[in-house]
Every structure is written in C-alpha cells, then in structure tokens.
C-alpha cells in the first residue's frame, strides 16, 4: 500500500511536471502557432533567475515563484517585439529565428554562468509513507501545477484579455476590425507563454540542476506533449500529459529511467499515428 502510494505520487508528479513544462508552449505554439525552439531556454532562464535571486538573499519561495515568470516574461516581451512579430504566419522563418535565439541564449548563459551546475536549495523536506521516503516538494509541484493550470484557464476563459487573445488567434484581421489592438494582444500572449515557461524553470530549479544546455531536455517533452494534445491548448496539454506522464513513469518504475523516456516517446509516436491531430483533434472538441 505504501509502495503503491509512492508510485502513485511519482506518476502524478511526472504528469504535473509535463504540464508545467508544456503550458507556456501550449500558449505560444498551441494558440499562436509560433514554433518557439527557444522554449527550453526560457525554462532555463527561469531556473537561473531563481538561482540568482536566492544567491542575493531573496526568500526562496519568492525566488522560485515570483522572480522567474516576471523576468522571463519581460524577456519574452522583448523577443516578441524585436523578432517574432515580424514572422507571424511564417513557420519556417520562425523556427529558424527561434533556433538562432536558443543558440544565442545558451551562449550568453555559458558566458555569464559557465558550464557548472547551479541549483536552488530544496525548500520543503520529505516525509515518510510506511517504509518509504516521499518528497514534500514533489507534492507541492503537483499542487502548484494544478493551480497554475486553473489560473491560466480562468485567465483565458473569464477575463477580457483572455477573450481578446482567443478571438485574435482565431481571426486577427476581424478582431482588428472590431477595435482590438492585435499587436498588443500578440505581445502580451507571447510574454504570458514565456512567463509560464520561466515559472516552470523556477519551480523545477530545486529539483534539477541547471546548466546552460538544460533546455534541450525540456524542449522535446514540451513539443511532444503539445502536439499530442492537439488544438485545445489547456485540455490538450492536460490530456497528453496524463497519457505520456503515466506511461513514462510506469515504464521507469518497471525498468529504468532510460526505458521510461523511450516508452514516453513510443506512446507519442503511437498516439500521433492513431490521432494525427492530437487528442483534442478528435475528443473534447470545443474545449479550451
């Protein structure tokens, strides 16, 4: 029973991590159709923002939850104004530009921080379940990812900004003809996606050591989850994370982490083969 509980927590933690890592990309790619190959680097910058804040004496909770989304959100705003806004609707050019941006970010981070691993102290201690030790922070990550998902849903569904963003993504020309400043909507939406990526990086900073090249380990999972989820940004990410997180973590427990990653990838390949438009291309149509 205790072991089952531990396994259950780890499976849900894997799902929660996938949701956190993918949410920002779900906004930027899922809603805006911008292929942002620098998404992993946005997460890494969030981790570094948390690290710098902690090293400067900022409370660790503020350092991981408040500083990263603000910092990376602002960076995202600059990136959108300087680069991305000229490339909307041009997928190949966006891929090239964001890939170049990712290389630039990795280079800058390496120059500033070197290639040694940085980290943030674990703010929560573990607890025991039977004969097993569980991570209190993992439980926090689970709760926080649900909270973040809920907050983004409320923002998109019930606020005027969310309505304008959803309308603009469906038909920008018509939204503009109705008085919506679509350039501002695009900028704010991209910044939101970047902020969410930064937040994920901050939240995961105590769990995983950060090096400038850490982004590579996140980008694959994020794109697989968003693509597997389909058109509906939030429902898609949640349903895909449920599937891939469960399969990946179950395989990890049954074998080892390497096969766990392979199993996740295989699940994604099978899913796309069966549902080429992702889960929400067939199910949960009309959901957010």
């Amino acid at each position, binding site marked *: 029973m205790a072991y089952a509980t531990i396994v259950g927590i780890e499976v849900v933690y894997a799902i929660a991590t996938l949701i956190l890592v993918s949410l920002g990309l779900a906004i930027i790619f899922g809603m805006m159709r911008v292929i942002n190959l620098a998404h992993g680097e946005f997460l890494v910058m969030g981790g570094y923002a948390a690290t710098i804040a902690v090293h400067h004496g900022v409370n660790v909770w503020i350092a991981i939850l408040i500083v990263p989304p603000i910092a990376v959100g602002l960076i995202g705003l600059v990136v959108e104004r300087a680069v991305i806004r000229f490339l909307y609707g041009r997928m190949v050019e966006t891929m090239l530009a964001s890939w170049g941006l990712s290389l630039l970010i990795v280079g800058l981070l390496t120059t500033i921080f070197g290639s040694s691993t940085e980290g943030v102290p674990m703010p929560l201690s573990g607890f025991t379940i039977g004969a097993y030790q569980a991570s209190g922070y993992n439980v926090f990550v689970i709760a926080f990812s649900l909270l973040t998902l809920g907050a983004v849903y409320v923002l998109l569904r019930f606020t*005027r900004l969310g*309505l*304008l963003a*959803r*309308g603009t993504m*469906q*038909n920008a*020309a*018509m*939204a*503009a*003809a*109705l*008085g*919506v*400043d*679509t350039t501002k909507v695009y900028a704010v939406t991209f910044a939101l996606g970047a902020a969410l990526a930064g937040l994920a990086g901050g939240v995961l900073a105590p769990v995983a050591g950060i090096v400038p090249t850490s982004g590579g380990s996140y980008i694959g999972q994020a794109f697989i989850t968003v693509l597997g989820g389909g058109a509906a940004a939030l429902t898609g990410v949640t349903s895909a994370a449920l599937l891939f997180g469960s399969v990946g973590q179950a395989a990890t427990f049954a074998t080892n982490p390497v096969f766990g990653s392979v199993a996740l990838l295989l699940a994604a390949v099978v899913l796309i083969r069966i549902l080429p438009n992702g889960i929400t291309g067939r199910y949960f149509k*009309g959901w957010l």
Partner: protein
Amino acid sequence: MILEIDDLHAGYGRIPILNGVSFGVGEGEAVGILGHNGMGKTTLLRALVGQLPLTGGHLRFAGKEIGRDPSHRRARAGIGYVPQGRAIFPALSVYENLRMGYIPRGEESEEGTINDIRAIFPRLDKLLDRAGGALSGGEQQLLSLARALCGKPKLLLLDEPTEGIQPSIIEEIIEILRQLHRFQNLAIIVVEQSLDFIAQLSERVLLLQKGTITREVSPKQLANASLLDDLAGVGE
C-alpha cells in the same frame, strides 16, 4: 460628411484594383454600391477598414485623415464592419462574439451595450451559449451584424449581407438597419448584388466599374431596364 474618399487607390501586390475612387457619405446617409464581380467592391470596403493598405488617395472619417491608421483605430473611431462570409469566431460562443465587438468608450458598460443589442436581435438571444461555428448561415449573418453594432459605430460597412441567406432573415436585417438608420442616425455603406436589398436600404446607389465610381443613381432608377443592361450580371 462622415466619410470622404478622394482618389483612392489600392490593390493586391502589383495588381491595382481601386483606380481612383472618390465619393462621400453624409452623416446618417445610406449608400449602396453595385458592381459586377471583380470590380473592386470588397476591396473598397477592406481598404476602408484598414485591412488593405492604400497606394494612393485620401480617406477622411469625421473630418480626420485615417488613411494610414491601423484597422483597430478606425474601428474605435466609429467604423463598423460586417464582412463577406461573416467572419464569426467559430470557437467562441454567440455571447463571446458579441463581447468581441464591444469597444469601451466610457459611455456604457459592456453588459449594458450587449443587453441593448440582444433586445434588437431576439433570435440571437436564444443562442447565446452556442458556439459561433455551430450557427446556420443566417444566424451567423445576424451575429456578424449584432457584433459590429456592439461597437456603437457611426458608419457601418456591409459586404454582401444577403449572400446565401434565407429571405426571412434578409427581411429581418433590412428592418433592423432601417430602424438604426432612422432613429440612431447610423450611416451605412452596403455592397450588394441584390438590387432589391440595395433599393430598400439605400438613399443613393453608386456603380463601381473597374475600380472607379462611374455612375450614381437613385434606388428608383434600379427598376430601369436600360440601366440593368449596364449592370448585366448583377442582381441575377
């Protein structure tokens, strides 16, 4: 004059479509625009709302030059647009589509504005939770019109509002526009192929041929057979 168009030029890339369009619309005036397919009717409206850049000429709205203004600024200045094909946001509900049309001007709240519009469009009032993409063509046309009116425009541009619409809804649209035109002094430009619709709604009709205005007629003259020969293909 609410709208002054002076020697307007616009096109798609290197292909000129509007070759010096000039006309004016008075405050509260209803003007119809007739023309064959491909003569530039839709291009004209798209240029007026800012979806197509001008390559020459001047455009003044309420005395202010707007030819270089982006689309959203022209809408906020008071130009409403009901495009050909309706352009409903398909994944948004009817109520959310209406909310998209609301422009905060400090005069009335969003809820108050939408409630006023709901009173004018009882057919839509029963469909508020339905997705825009799930409506019939006629219902979408009513929604597109209602959405544009949520912005409280001073000038409303309509591009072929009767295309593919059942007669009962066409009558409903005519009646709504007449009421707004009469009681709220709403200026209207309507581009149409339906001579009957244009005749019922417009105070004067402009004929657009090869990107320029070639004639101005009164609605009664649309019954003239020789004029209809000129407009061969229109209204059939």
